[in-house]
């Protein structure tokens, strides 16, 4: 085999590497000569959108990332937040959108694998996972195949690895027909004094490669993920990696064992852009150079070129800088777990990134410029124009009971049981609330009362209509879902999925969404501690709905006082906290308009952040005081859907009143923000209105009572809870009937 590192770099070759001509000029300026072939590959890996955040960095800097409890904000493998008692929760959400569309099973599986690795790289044992999935229209020819493959892939990896999936989202919209979204979240527990970082320290220390062998899979994956899709998409399958959860599980145990020996100085997983990105990041962060000898890299196949080795995205691999005197001890740990262990290089003091292969220097580049000084763009953007508000008298009519049943049976609101029953939701034995409620909750193992709540949220149709309000709403809904369990929302991770940032209107959506997220995070004291940006989610020039997914973590001091969504008993009062005078008013961008009338007009419901905080803080106190017996936040589908979900979760019916003299449609289906349904016993109801309500400054009308086997909404005909359940549970299995899950 011959490998020519010095082939002529043509404009076509530059374009194939996803680099623009001006970026290529910058490379020449930087190194004072034309790059070698391997060097071009390295630049393309480091400077693509996925790895460099070149379009988004300017705006990401505006997000609040600090707080009393924040130990580590963005910039590391994951964010780290103090949960007291010397422990921290380490978490992040990351997209695997492009590969999952090309190869759904492996794309989703390796998305889960990648995010788990980000968490245990920092010394944390993964304790919870979530997945926010967005697919095209149910009737689109690819949707069933993609749903089946992605769900099987998420389960196949997470179940085998052994982490409970405690929550997530599944949504359908035709705007995802050509670009699905797979956003994987993972969280792990670590001791605050045993967190591991990627910054290398010390000159002349061994750089050690651990884990699985390097193959040709995923070469150029990060570059592929930084471009739009065209009609040649099927040709991109080889850029998708193949996951091996068995190796990942062994890698987890081996890494945690190795960290306990004190041998690890710095550690970085090989994710996007593999060996290149991990080595450059460790060196650049520590102001050190790195020299790699590729002859030492464990390879899966013969005759791999240095170009392929540097760009391979083979999974389940780690790079570490180790204390040399502990190298033998470290090697023994990896031999026990039957994983590869090879010293592949050393740290240097010259700030160069050098790659040796068969005695030849195939790359010699300035490490800082490759890494933390990659190009950055202030892309032009145009402010999105929000749509016109609905006219006050524009209220399409429909029977309330019929509408509720149809909405519960719609792709938008139907039960996701078909999905989450394919995930192991109870492994580790700490799952207190599994999918189906407002948030997933796990107890903190080893602590008598503490628990953690997790929720993932965004309403893309709101973001499409008004990116700023939509960004605010994503944060507020996540904060609200955590609050509804009784948790203190601690911090969040953001996974920002957008179209092509080179189009000013898409960049405008991005800028506005980030502004909205920032404002909401500041107002709610809910900093962003980690995240990921996925741009170029476009096919043949058509972008996805702007989808800034927010994954949040909350702390419950005593889980015996946690709230759930199911009604807790008969004859309890139902109160609507945070209600406007007419309980529900806002139909613009609602599920009611979209699902019943195919209308996507109007403004999304605005979020009043002060109101949001005041209502949430009150609800949390009522949960912790034991006054609230069940709590559910209101979101898609409004009051009617919220109360139906509480009835279905418990099997207990309810009667909800209707205000006299106005239209019941906005009252029951409006999607006004900052609202919760809270139940309490009659005894506590009196106490609440006498002792707490006068000082609360929150409108919380008593709107109904639990009991019986039917749900009666105002003047509408009563509907049996069993009928609601049938409608709610029916759609997904029927839709997926006859699907092919095997790969």
């Amino acid at each position: 085999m011959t490998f020519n590192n010095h082939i002529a770099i043509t404009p076509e070759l530059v374009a194939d590497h996803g680099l623009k001509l001006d970026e290529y000029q910058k490379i020449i300026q930087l190194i004072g000569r034309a790059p070698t072939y391997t060097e071009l590959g390295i630049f393309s890996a480091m400077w693509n959108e996925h790895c460099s955040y070149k379009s988004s960095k300017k705006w990401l800097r505006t997000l609040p990332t600090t707080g009393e409890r924040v130990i580590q904000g963005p910039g590391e493998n994951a964010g780290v937040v103090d949960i007291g008692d010397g422990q921290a929760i380490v978490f992040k959400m990351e997209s695997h959108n492009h590969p999952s569309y090309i190869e759904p099973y492996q794309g989703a599986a390796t998305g889960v694998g990648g995010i788990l690795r980000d968490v245990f790289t920092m010394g944390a044992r993964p304790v919870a996972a979530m997945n926010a999935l967005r697919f095209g229209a149910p009737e689109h020819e690819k949707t069933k195949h993609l749903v089946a493959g992605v769900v099987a892939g998420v389960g196949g990896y997470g179940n085998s690895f052994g982490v409970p999936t405690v929550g997530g989202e599944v949504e359908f919209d035709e705007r995802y027909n050509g670009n699905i979204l797979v956003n994987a979240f993972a969280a792990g527990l670590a001791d605050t004094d045993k967190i591991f970082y990627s910054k290398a320290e010390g000159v002349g220390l061994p750089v050690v490669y651990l884990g699985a062998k390097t193959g040709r899979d995923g070469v150029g994956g990060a570059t592929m993920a930084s471009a739009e899709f065209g009609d040649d998409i099927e040709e991109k399958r080889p850029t998708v990696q193949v996951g091996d959860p068995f190796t990942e599980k062994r890698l987890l145990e081996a890494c945690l064992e190795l960290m306990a020996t004190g041998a690890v100085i710095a550690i970085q997983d090989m994710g996007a852009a593999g060996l290149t990105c991990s080595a450059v990041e460790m060196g650049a962060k520590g102001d050190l150079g790195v020299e790699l000898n590729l002859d030492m890299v464990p390879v899966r196949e013969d005759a791999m070129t240095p170009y392929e080795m540097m760009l391979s995205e083979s999974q389940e691999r780690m790079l570490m800088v180790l204390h040399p005197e502990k190298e033998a001890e470290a090697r023994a740990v990896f031999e026990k777990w039957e994983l590869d262990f090879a010293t592949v290089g050393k740290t240097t003091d010259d700030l160069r990134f050098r790659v040796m292969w068969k005695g030849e220097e195939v790359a010699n580049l300035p490490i800082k410029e490759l890494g933390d000084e990659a190009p950055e763009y202030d892309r032009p953007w145009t402010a999105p124009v929000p749509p016109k508000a609905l006219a006050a008298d524009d209220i399409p009519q429909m029977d309330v009971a019929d509408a509720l049943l149809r909405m519960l049976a719609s792709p938008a609101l139907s039960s996701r049981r078909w999905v989450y029953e394919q995930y192991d939701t109870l492994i580790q034995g700490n799952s207190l609330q599994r999918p189906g409620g407002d948030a997933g909750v796990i107890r903190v193992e080893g602590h008598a009362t503490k628990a953690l709540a997790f929720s993932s949220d965004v309403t893309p149709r709101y973001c499409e209509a008004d990116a700023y309000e939509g960004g605010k709403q994503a944060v507020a809904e996540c904060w609200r879902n955590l609050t509804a369990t009784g948790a203190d929302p601690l911090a969040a991770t953001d996974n920002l999925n957008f179209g092509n940032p080179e189009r000013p209107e898409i960049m405008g959506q991005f800028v506005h969404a980030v502004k909205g997220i920032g404002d909401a995070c500041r107002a709610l004291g809910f900093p962003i501690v980690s995240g990921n940006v996925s741009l170029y989610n476009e096919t043949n020039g058509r972008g996805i709905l702007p989808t800034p997914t927010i994954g949040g973590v909350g702390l419950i001091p005593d889980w015996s006082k946690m709230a759930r969504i199911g009604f807790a008993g008969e004859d309890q009062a139902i109160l609507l906290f945070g209600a406007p005078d007419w309980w529900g008013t806002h139909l613009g961008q609602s599920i009611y308009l979209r699902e019943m009338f195919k209308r996507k007009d109007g403004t999304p419901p605005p979020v009043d952040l002060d109101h949001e905080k005041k209502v949430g803080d009150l609800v949390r106190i009522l949960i912790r005081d034991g006054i609230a017996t069940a709590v559910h936040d209101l979101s898609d589908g409004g009051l009617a859907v919220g109360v139906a979900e509480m009835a279905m979760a418990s099997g207990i019916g309810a009667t909800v009143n209707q205000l006299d003299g106005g239209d019941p449609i906005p009252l029951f289906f409006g999607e006004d923000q900052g609202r919760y349904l809270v139940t309490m016993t009659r005894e506590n109801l009196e106490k609440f209105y006498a002792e707490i309500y006068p000082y609360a400054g929150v409108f919380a009308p008593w709107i109904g009572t639990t009991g019986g086997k039917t749900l009666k909404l105002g003047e509408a005909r009563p509907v049996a809870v069993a009928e609601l359940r049938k409608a709610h549970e029916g759609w997904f299995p029927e839709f997926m009937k006859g699907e092919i899950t095997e790969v």
Partner: protein
Amino acid sequence: MKAAVVVFPGLNRDRDMIAALTKIGGEAPAVVWHKDAEIPKVDLIVIPGGFSYGDYLRVGAIAARSPVMDTIRDRAAHGVKVMGVCNGFQILSEAGLVPGVLMRNASLKFVCREVKLQIENASTPFTRGYKQGQIIRCPVAHHDGNYFADAETLARVEGQGQVAFRYADGTNPNGSINDIAGVFNEKKNVLGLMPHPENLIEAAHGGSDGRQLFSGLLNAA
């Protein structure tokens, strides 16, 4: 009573099992790595759930041929109680320590949900905490729990009281023959079961129906 938990690479419910044995038995079990030369002298050996060796070959097949299984087979022959849960059951069946095989779920999908189990034989060390015919709640989480045995074996298993648990009230999650969820060997000192009683032992789990299996076993000897 002394217990040991045997761990193969890729098992992932070892921690759940160790927690259940410790919480209910009051004493942490010995944890035996598959390459350890010896299993300490114990009254109960447990193989927990997971995906040994990734289950890339037939489920449980590689672990079942591991040298430690010879020791377990020998101990079982001498009356030591052996329990395999989920992947542990698959390993025991591959090793021939319990009758029958476990095939891919009829749905072809992984399934994690709560089912009902009927206690089919309450007069064994494993099941004496329950009443004969009692129906309990229990979670399952598996991809390959579809129990099958040929007609002759099945007749023997059914005829000799070797069925330990049966899915009840139409909750069979995997299409197993005769709704079988767990089986004994002929001497009733080896049990294999698909469901996870170790994940339903305390208030935090939303119930404790799995608890009597452990309390019956551990408080006995």
